[in-house]
């Protein structure tokens, strides 16, 4: 392991989420990017990213997830993949497929790309395009999946689950299988940033969630050995929180388009945290010593009921961003935990939002417009 400080032993991280850009042709209402997006002019250049990849590999990172926004919006994407592979990293491209044609995909494969993760919004084109805020997106995604298959690249299909598509989880898994994906990620929306803003339009009912979860367990054996099914569980109706990020500052780190280093992609929603930048400091030093990483690493920061809880090194108190969003205090127990004083409040908020009459999406990048965009009628 890489080292330690006075308070907490600092393990070596395994994964780096590289948000290459916040630019994206899609405008999904649950986007994981922050409400305030980094400008293109502030994005790290190719050379700096290459240095970040080398520093990450040297400190123990094994896998880099090239994400965004839409990473294909970067003209230097092929060079970035090559740089990550040169550094010895496993390269995973997380893409919407928009702006990534078959020619560039060939070049990405030649540069050493290990794996492609493609987002689908739904199984039905009309609904999928409405969710993405981009007419025609779904058809292009299916064509892209075909190109990935023809090139023999490994494919994961991922879908964020919410009220508009939750009744079709089984169909989504089957669609992933039919696209020859080796893995599918069914990720229930996590309500920070854009998803929090759109919670009223996205939150499914308790019954929908229970039905979808039961359905997943039913179909799972059917795909064994053929398709790996990973589930990001919904937690608004849960009794215990999930071990967010496998523990703060324990397994992975996130670099934003402009170079700030975060313990998780939503960490900027926590007011008062001090983030350091790869422009100013070596990555290893940021991981070890920056105030944002120190803030919630280990268990010393915990209060009751987490502090004496036997689950404290299993769920690490749940999600700091959710504690911030619901309890207004990032050091509180995640309200998804039934031991949290805000647990009942969180369930009430979910039920309230789930029963709200149809609400329009606030699309990222387009919310200031009077009429969002020309979206197909549902």
């Amino acid at each position, binding site marked *: 392991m*890489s080292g330690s400080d006075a308070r907490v032993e600092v393990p*070596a991280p*395994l994964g780096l989420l590289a948000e290459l850009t916040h630019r994206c042709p899609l405008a999904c209402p649950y986007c994981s990017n922050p409400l305030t997006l980094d400008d293109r002019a502030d994005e790290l250049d190719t050379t700096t990213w290459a240095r970040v990849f080398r520093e990450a590999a040297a*400190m*123990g990172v*094994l*896998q880099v997830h090239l994400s965004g926004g839409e990473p294909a919006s970067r003209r230097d994407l092929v060079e970035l993949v090559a740089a990550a592979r040169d550094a*010895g990293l*496993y390269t*995973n491209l997380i893409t919407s497929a928009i702006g990534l044609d078959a020619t560039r995909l060939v070049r990405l494969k030649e540069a050493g790309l*290990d*794996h492609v*993760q493609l987002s689908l919004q739904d199984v039905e084109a009309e609904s999928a395009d409405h969710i993405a805020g981009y007419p025609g997106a779904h058809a292009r995604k299916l064509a892209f999946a075909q190109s990935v298959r023809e090139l*023999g*690249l*490994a*494919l*994961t299909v991922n879908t964020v689950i919410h009220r508009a598509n939750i009744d079709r989880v089984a169909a989504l898994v089957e669609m992933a299988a039919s696209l020859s994906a*080796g*893995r599918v*990620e069914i990720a229930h929306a996590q309500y920070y940033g854009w998803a929090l803003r759109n919670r009223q339009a996205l939150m499914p009912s308790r019954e929908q969630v229970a039905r979808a979860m039961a359905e997943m367990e039913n179909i799972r054996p059917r795909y*064994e*050995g*053929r*398709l*790996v099914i*990973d589930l990001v569980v919904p937690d608004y109706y849960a009794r215990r929180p999930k071990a967010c990020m496998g523990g703060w500052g324990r397994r992975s780190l996130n670099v934003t388009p402009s170079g700030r280093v975060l313990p998780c992609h939503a960490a900027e929603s926590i007011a008062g945290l001090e983030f350091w930048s790869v422009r100013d400091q070596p990555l290893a030093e940021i991981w070890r010593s920056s105030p944002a990483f120190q803030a919630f690493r280990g268990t010393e920061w915990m209060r009751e009921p987490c502090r004496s809880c036997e689950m404290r090194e299993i769920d690490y108190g749940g999600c700091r961003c959710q504690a911030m969003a619901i309890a207004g205090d990032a050091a509180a127990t995640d309200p998804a935990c039934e031991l949290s004083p805000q647990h009942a409040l969180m369930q009430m908020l979910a039920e309230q939002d789930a029963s709200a009459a149809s609400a329009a999406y606030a699309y990222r990048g387009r919310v200031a417009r009077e009429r969002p965009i020309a979206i197909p009628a549902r």
Partner: protein
Amino acid sequence: MAELPERPKLAPGVRLHFDTTRQAWVLLGPERVIETEGPASDILRRCDGSRTVCEIIDELAVLYTADRAEIAVDVNDMLAELATKRMVV
């Protein structure tokens, strides 16, 4: 458990990598890092789509000068588990 392939190979998007930080061979796949122990990396290195499971067992028995039947159990168990996880096809 998934059926064992006749001539196993690492699935697309899966590769064996020596992790210098942790001084161990690891199997890297989509959102997966599997640390290997003991003979696992010697088995995985031979999963190249050309050798049969029997041939892999033969080679391991020679390499480790061990009882073939015991090696066979280890190899079969490991490959079956990795096939279920779709790391080996």
